[in-house]
């Protein structure tokens, strides 16, 4: 190592080395402390569906131009209603799939007839912008089987979630990456 040409070990240099050792020790201690506190555990952001009020900011405030938040559907909670209040405009003229009857601003919900009188509703994620309009509609009248989740194939996992900052109900929380979703389930 190309050391400085060692001039006489002046008081300053001695002082400096002393300081260096001390600070290195300090840094080491700090490191140890931090390491002991830290775990090989990563955090990711997720929406607590029971705190979400579907204000729509997930659609507008994500750092991604297409939000990482999407609506998901817990089918086993769904009533398979003909008049799905998550799918249809509050007072639909007809129970048909025309855009004019739909609630979703981007037509991201697919309605499929299964058997009288049941219909299946699925989310087309490529269209969903995560505004949560259907979430409110479903929760207001129905079983609340539609809810918002952060999709981790899209989420950049920012150190500070830009949506979480403006979430009016503080529904966006850190969860361990090992269990990255907070799903509504039939039997909690």
């Amino acid at each position, binding site marked *: 190592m190309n050391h400085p040409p060692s001039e006489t070990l002046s008081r300053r240099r001695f002082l400096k080395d002393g300081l260096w050792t001390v600070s290195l020790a300090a840094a080491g201690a700090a490191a140890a402390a931090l390491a002991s506190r830290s775990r090989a555990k990563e955090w990711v952001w997720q929406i607590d569906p*029971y*705190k*979400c*009020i*579907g*204000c*729509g*900011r997930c*659609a*507008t*405030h994500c750092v991604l131009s297409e939000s990482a938040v999407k609506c998901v559907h817990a089918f086993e909670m769904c*009533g*398979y*209603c*003909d*008049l*799905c*209040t998550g799918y249809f405009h*509050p*007072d639909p003229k007809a129970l048909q799939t025309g855009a004019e009857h739909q*609630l979703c*601003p981007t037509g991201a919900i697919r309605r499929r007839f299964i058997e009288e*009188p049941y219909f299946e509703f699925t989310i087309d994620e490529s269209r969903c*912008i995560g*505004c*949560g*309009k*259907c*979430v*409110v*509609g479903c*929760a*207001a*009248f*129905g*079983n*609340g089987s539609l809810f918002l989740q952060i999709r981790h194939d899209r989420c950049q996992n920012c150190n500070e979630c830009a949506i979480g*900052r*403006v979430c*009016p*109900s503080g*529904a966006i929380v850190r969860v361990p990456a090992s269990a990255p979703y907070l799903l*509504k389930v039939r039997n*909690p």
Partner: protein
Amino acid sequence: MRQRSYKQAAKVEGGLIAVLLALTAFGAGFLAYWFVDRRFIRQDVPQAFRYSMEELTAIEPFLLIYRQIRPPIETGLQTAVALDVDSEGAVWAAGDQKILRFAADGRKDTEISLSSKPTAVKAADGVLYVALTDRIEIYSSSGQRVSAWAPVRTALLTSIAVGPEDVFAADALNKVIHRFDKQGNSRGLLGAKDSQRGIEGFVVPSPYFDVLIGRDGLLRATNPGRQRVEAYTFDGHLEWHWGIPSVKLEGFSGCCNPIALAQLPDGTFVTGEKGLVRVKVYDDQGRLLGVVAGPQQLGWKGPIRVCETPEECGSRGLDVAADGQGRIYVLEQVRNTILIFEKNE
């Protein structure tokens, strides 16, 4: 690569630096401000992304033909499920693992504790019919168990109606109405899908399914998934039905309403809706006669709830009952209180 001296034209530098720094400071400041949270205050979400029910909750005052006559009865139950009013005007409320009796002055005077969670209660024949998920038990009004019927296999009995010699129970799980005799022996099913009898069948997406026996001797049952009330003869002929799906007052709102039904002494019907919570009075042909209580009166806070635990957010609706004087009792399951309404003079 070759290098060059950086210091030249020292005179201009000062000014330039000043300008640049000012620029940065300003720019950074401005952008920072741009991001300062005037959070929540600024309505920064396009209306198209919002589901607003507020305008639907307003009700013309002249339509409110009922008024609350005394402070609500606090049942003190964690999850109140059902209520009924007996011939003496006392209120029976079922929930948790008990049944409470509130005297006419609203004071709790009897408490019956049950083996499991009740799902429906009906005071008739001077006794109390109680549904416990899949079976019916009968209690004397003093609280002794008189008899317990054999359970129905995999059922969720959410309502009981008692006739001269029949007992009917609405089964939300199998979407049919069970018919028993007074000893609890099954006398068949009503309302199952049956094309040649023109019965489309019940649609019950959530555990709310109500039956009663009308003063005209016909059975009335809610069909929430079809937003209507249906009238059956005891042997299961669908006579007629009424009710239309609509958020407007005359209709039943949302996917699955009405969820509760009661009949007034004058033969008109009281209906209860969840979601956009409303209690309304209809005549036997489904003409809206007036509103008992709307979202405001029932303490509706908003279309969606926020809970610490999932359980709090479990679907909460209401149940209705009426007494001999035409008073209407509403059990709302969010605060588990009983509201009592009387018609305005």
